[in-house]
């Protein structure tokens, strides 16, 4: 919403209010200032009266003007064609400095002396008001040659752009903004009253009639005019340009200007559309069952109230007979109806859907004033009306309640004063209790908290004393809080193991997920309006996102790329779960003096070690995960406490190639399984333990975990631990391999004797010989 200081001044006297104060007030009452711009016009720019214009002898497009600039006549060469029609113009005289540091000096144009410049609006830092130079008229004030242009308040104006919240349709017009200011600044509104000077020739009922059909939900007023000629004032042009409305049509300009000033929605019809067979103008507002009101012409729809207008019904400047309509429809009814019917909406819909001004006669009087001033027009007496009995909302307001919502005592007189200025009607009901009648233009106000908001914004939040809340003591460390703490711990460990935390979109590319064999969301549960092709579904793995991040880093010449992410993934029924995913790509280490600048690539063992540093102890078994990222011979299930909770793998070489990244390892684990479990301690022995190595030869096909399973099933009390320490294969072993396992034996009661140790080792050898055909080496 754009307003200007001089425009506001038509409704409220702001002469004692500085721009700074205006800016501050707007922000403090909830009309946020987006931008504020003061138009500065150089002292040397003055009103010039054109005395004569003749063509330049040597240039088709140039004109030689003699212009009275107050201090005398000047010869100025001007290139704009419309200078021919001008009487008063803005002249930058010698010495003027225009925006862009453009200084006006004596010049000779094609051999003709020129002492100044006739200005277009944009050359003075004003918005573009149309082709050619600015043609001034009395709409900005009395014109006299030599008058400094910056003395006209509507030119040297302050332009303010407000960012309105969705509930403030009442401030989508200059009048509404002025009303808010009147309450905040404690200033009275200027009364607006206008009665047409010209005596109407005929009553409207003689030529036109109105018949409604169905339940009317809109207020409508129609007035009829005969139009001979219509001109446009410079002020209207300039202000519409400031507001950013670009309309060539002069009648339409006047309507747009009136709507922006008053908030009343206006449309102009060529009466042809309403003329029936008997040459009578018949207007048929017709309500349908969806709450839409169509203004029916003789054969077709002329407009839909608050929504759009049929192109053919629009009255243009050459139209001889014009029907002007002012309308109001409640925004909530309208918005719902439009959503249900899918009707096309025009520019006015933004205002009607947010709430226009219901005071139709105000808008029409304002228009009358403009019409009488700028047009050669005659109007019919009276109007065709549809008037709805609307009940205003009444809110019972208890001052004590308002004070408790704000947290500060507020005086009754303050509340009454504020509401009164905002246009609320107040009826006392008892001590500090009032029935407040809400004006129609504040359809957003429904209960006492809404009223409190009005009080808060006008007294200013910064004038409310902050007060800490006293609150019942209660433990509030719940599971979610705990989970955050634990997650943070995992993250910290991951950064200790070199990983960088990644955050990526919870979206993914369906094609990629399908290609790599990850679950897809069922078709009828899919996203209906994805924002981009590569983000067209919810992810079922984080790994694809991480690989994309790796690819980006490779292009930034990163050699070692360790990333992790904890985040949501979704199953085929869109069920949400949380996983922790890792990717490590390229060099294990940076190039440094220790590795002589030739760091190793990441490998399975180092990757496993890093994952362990984050998630703690785990067991690895051949991978049961089937997806396109997994390397079939270098991948494993990650098992914690006997439960499979994820996998780690070398990235499949074909995927590595298609992402164009170096050797990469990946892992993804269910985060729930990683949540720490309760631990009970087991006693430790005071006696010395002993390490024993055992080398066995077994089939190459036997994985270590199968041996470990056998060892773990042994019921030998003194066998505390066992783990592989060497693996050896060569030609002489054929399809066998040699595996060395280290055992740790310890008793709770005593230091073990040699024979006891030997006995345990023999038991172990026996079972391995039996269950996996192991031979001692």
């Amino acid at each position: 919403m754009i307003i200007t200081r001089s425009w506001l001044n038509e409704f409220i006297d702001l002469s004692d209010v500085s721009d700074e104060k205006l800016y501050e007030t707007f922000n403090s009452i909830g009309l946020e200032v987006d931008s504020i711009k003061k138009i500065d016009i150089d002292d040397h720019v003055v009103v010039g009266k054109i005395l004569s214009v003749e063509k330049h002898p040597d240039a088709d497009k140039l004109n030689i003007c003699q212009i009275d600039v107050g201090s005398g006549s000047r010869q100025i060469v001007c290139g704009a064609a419309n200078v021919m029609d001008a009487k008063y113009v803005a002249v930058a005289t010698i010495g003027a400095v225009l925006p862009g540091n453009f200084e006006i000096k004596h010049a000779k144009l094609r051999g003709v002396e020129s002492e100044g410049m006739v200005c277009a609006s944009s050359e003075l830092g004003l918005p573009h008001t149309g082709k050619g130079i600015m043609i001034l008229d009395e709409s900005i004030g009395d014109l006299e040659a030599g008058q400094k242009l910056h003395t006209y308040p509507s030119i040297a104006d302050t332009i303010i752009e407000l960012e309105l919240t969705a509930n403030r349709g009442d401030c989508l017009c200059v009048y509404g903004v002025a009303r808010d200011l009147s309450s905040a600044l404690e200033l009275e509104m200027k009364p607006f009253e206008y009665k047409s000077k010209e005596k109407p020739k005929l009553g409207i009922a003689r030529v036109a009639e109105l018949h409604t059909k169905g339940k009317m939900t809109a207020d409508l007023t129609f007035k009829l005019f005969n139009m001979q000629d219509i001109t446009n004032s410079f002020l209207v042009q300039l202000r519409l340009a400031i507001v950013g409305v670009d309309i060539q049509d002069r009648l339409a300009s006047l309507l747009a200007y009136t709507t922006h000033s008053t908030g009343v929605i206006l449309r102009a019809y060529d009466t042809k559309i309403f003329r029936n067979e008997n040459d009578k103008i018949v207007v048929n507002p017709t309500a349908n069952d969806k709450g839409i009101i169509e203004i029916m012409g003789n054969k077709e729809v002329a407009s839909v109230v608050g929504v759009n207008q049929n192109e053919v019904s629009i009255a243009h400047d050459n139209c001889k007979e014009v029907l002007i309509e002012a309308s109001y429809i409640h925004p909530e009814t309208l918005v719902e109806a439009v959503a249900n019917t899918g009707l096309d909406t025009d520019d006015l819909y933004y205002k009607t859907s947010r709430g226009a001004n219901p005071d139709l006669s105000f808008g029409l009087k304002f228009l009358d004033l403009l019409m009488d001033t700028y047009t050669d027009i005659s109007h019919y007496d009276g109007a065709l009306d549809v008037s709805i009995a609307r009940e205003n909302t009444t809110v019972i307001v208890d001052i004590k309640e308002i004070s408790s919502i704000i947290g500060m005592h507020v005086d009754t007189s303050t509340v009454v004063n504020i509401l009164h200025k905002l246009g609320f009607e107040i009826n006392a009901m008892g001590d500090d209790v009032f029935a407040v009648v809400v004006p129609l233009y504040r359809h957003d106000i429904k209960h006492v908290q809404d009223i409190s908001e009005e009080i808060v914004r006008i007294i200013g939040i910064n004038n409310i004393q902050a007060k800490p809340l006293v609150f019942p003591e209660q433990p509030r460390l719940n599971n979610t809080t705990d989970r955050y703490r634990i997650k943070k711990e995992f993250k910290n460990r991951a950064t200790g193991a070199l990983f960088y935390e990644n955050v990526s979109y919870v979206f993914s590319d369906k094609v990629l997920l399908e290609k790599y064999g990850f679950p897809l969301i069922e078709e009828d549960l899919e996203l209906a309006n994805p924002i981009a092709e590569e983000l067209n579904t919810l992810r079922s793995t984080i790994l694809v996102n991480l690989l994309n991040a790796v690819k980006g880093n490779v292009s930034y010449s990163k050699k070692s790329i360790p990333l992790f992410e904890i985040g949501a993934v979704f199953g085929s029924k869109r069920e949400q779960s949380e996983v922790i995913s890792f990717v490590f790509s390229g060099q294990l280490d940076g190039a440094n003096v220790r590795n002589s600048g030739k760091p190793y690539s990441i490998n399975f063992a180092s990757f496993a070690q890093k994952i362990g540093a984050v998630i703690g102890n785990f067991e690895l078994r051949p991978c049961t995960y089937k997806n396109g990222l997994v390397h079939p011979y270098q991948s494993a299930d990650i098992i914690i406490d006997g439960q499979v909770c994820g996998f780690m793998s070398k990235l499949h070489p074909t995927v590595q190639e298609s992402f164009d990244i170096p050797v990469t390892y990946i892992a993804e684990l269910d985060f729930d399984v990683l949540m720490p479990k309760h631990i009970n301690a087991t006693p430790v022995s005071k006696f010395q333990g002993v390490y024993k190595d055992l080398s066995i030869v077994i089939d190459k096909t036997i994985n270590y975990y199968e041996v470990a399973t056998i060892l773990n099933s042994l019921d030998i009390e003194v066998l505390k631990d066992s783990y592989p320490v060497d693996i050896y294969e060569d030609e002489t072993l054929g399809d066998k391999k040699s595996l060395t396992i280290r055992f740790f034996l310890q008793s709770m009661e005593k230091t073990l004797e040699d024979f006891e140790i030997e006995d345990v080792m023999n038991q172990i050898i026996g079972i391995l010989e039996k269950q996996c055909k192991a031979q001692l080496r």
Partner: protein
Amino acid sequence: MKELEEKIVLADSLETLEKVRVELFGKKGVLASEFAKMKDVPGPEKKAFAEGLNKNKAVLQASFDVRYEALKAEEIERVLKSEAIDVSLYGTLAQKGALHPVMETMDKIIDYFVALNFAVETGPMVEDDFHNFEALNLPKYHPARDMQDTFYFKDGGLLRTHTSPVQIRTMLETKPPIRMIAPGTVFRRDFDVTHTPMFHQVEGLVVDDKGTVSFANLKSILTDFLKYMFGDVEVRFRPSFFPFTEPSAEVDISCIFCEGEGCRICSHTGWLEVLGCGIVDPNVFKAVGYEDVSGYAFGLGVERFAMLMHKIPDLRSLFEGDIRLLEQFR
């Protein structure tokens, strides 16, 4: 005697000194043989002889000790020297990853409210119309829905556009008093220089008996919170509009880049908008079946906080896993 002392002083290594020690103090050493002569010394002179010997022994022992310490020190110095390295070569070996600045900012925010006895609550990312809009006083066709461009699913579900549905879920599941925050991931269908389709919010809600929770309370906690996050800044409240709070306000801090002078980042206003807040709208309480309560709520965008706090210039870079950005937070 002089000769013996000289031997000690001239010993140039611990080995030589050890040989000298054996020669002098050993069982068959010089001193031992001198003491052996005692038995031949006539009675009256025995005392003086012994005293003389002991004195010589003490002198020799002292100079031996001095020499020993000196040689030992030399020896250690030699070993130490042989182990010398250029330590400055290894400073670059130390490596560590880094937490994501947005997540770290979120943790910092959570820390503050947990310390003030707020519970942390969560909810699903895929929501329904009731929890995300309807119960928050955003009925269908409400113009404020335009502010939140929504991702919908084919079955009518949607991706939550704010963390506020967590308030609704918590209120439906528990009874007041409530004191909670809801940190989480939210989605809006918007993608340009200043918008990403996914970002993070932290939402807060406090509910207690009617007449107890006021706007003044909200002002108190948020002013303190913003000073905790941004240091010594000025805090300004501006009235605003949110469907789920009434009265509502937006909260600004004085620009931390130009200290209020006006710069590009604060659009020359001297202020940065960082929070939205307000008194819970009675329609929200009605939707969850609460009666005779009062409450406040607030919400903030974590990315905005992180970008301001760490002067991160580009929003979209936060979601690209760019190590050049992340490694700055090690």
